[in-house]
């Protein structure tokens, strides 16, 4: 029998349900609990290790990413990447790099991901950032760090379809997630996105305590 006193794992947006504007013009959903690691290593050494441990090409071009079914590798800086997936294979990667000078840090509980999708997702995001996300400048697979309102986040365009528009993911810090969620909902208001009220920290703490 499960231990009723065991703490429950709660994502930063556990109190939010996915929401959508009218006719699904914009949709918001949290993708919680993905395993995320930050890799810092010399690009050449990293490329060989990532290839053999994860079967992925380590993106060398700024603002790009590589992806297999389960795992993605996002460029964050000239010697820095995020590896993200259900089980992102980081243990194997650490083994591969054991003899090298590297850093592999588990940041799974430091960030969460918010998926912003739908035919109007681009327009909704444009209200929040100075980043150029026009289709000619920002294409599927691209990643960029920027400011969204007051929140720092990584924006990743995972795909784009003719009928359903782009699917973005915002990788945002835990403590900024609810702020960003409410702001994204506000951006979708012109297409009929429901209003989302910010939740004060105290209410969240109480909800968390009651769930124990």
């Amino acid at each position, binding site marked *: 029998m499960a231990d009723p006193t065991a703490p429950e794992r709660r994502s930063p947006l556990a109190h939010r349900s996915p929401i959508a504007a009218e006719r699904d013009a914009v949709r918001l959903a949290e993708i919680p609990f993905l395993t995320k690691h930050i890799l810092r290593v010399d690009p050449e050494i990293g490329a060989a290790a990532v290839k053999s441990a994860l079967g992925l090409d380590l993106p060398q071009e700024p603002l790009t990413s590589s992806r297999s079914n389960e795992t993605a590798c996002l460029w964050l800086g000239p010697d*820095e990447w995020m590896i993200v997936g259900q089980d992102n294979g980081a243990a194997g990667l650490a083994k591969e790099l054991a003899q090298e000078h590297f850093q592999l840090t588990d940041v799974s509980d430091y960030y969460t991901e918010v998926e912003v999708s739908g035919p109007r997702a681009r327009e909704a995001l444009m209200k929040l950032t100075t980043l150029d996300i026009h289709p000619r400048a920002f294409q599927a697979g691209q990643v960029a760090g*920027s400011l969204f309102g007051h929140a720092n986040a990584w924006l990743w365009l995972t795909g784009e379809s003719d009928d359903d528009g782009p699917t973005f993911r915002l990788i945002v810090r835990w403590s900024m997630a609810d702020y960003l969620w409410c702001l994204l909902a506000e951006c979708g208001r012109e297409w009929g996105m429901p209003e989302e009220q910010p939740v004060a920290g105290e209410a969240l703490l109480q909800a968390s305590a009651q769930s124990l």
Partner: protein
Amino acid sequence: MFVIKCPNCGERDLSEFSYGGEAHISRPEWRDEMSDTEWAEFVFMRTNPKGVFAERWNHAAGCRRWFNMLRNTATDDILAVYGMGEEPPEVTANLPATPSGEAAIGSGNDEAKVIDAGDAADGGGGA
């Protein structure tokens, strides 16, 4: 928008960057007999010119890497972006005269000061 070209990420708005002060100021080698004056020179004294100024910037909301930039403090023209540890490239800067004909306020660089509009044509000194 004030746009800065990050060497990694390309053109981004100023709001993504943080400022790191004057570039190319190296910490003096420690010696026992080092004077307070020498330390004060390193810690506090900056050139503050009107004209070409080498400064450090960090792309704080993006790749979070540092780089150097040459900026014309009189016009805010960005004249060059180059890597940390690199020498500043040669540049020429347009130095408009101040409208009242007086020396630029806050300019500690007398060579760069332009008193008459006509002086600006021959370069006005630069940095």
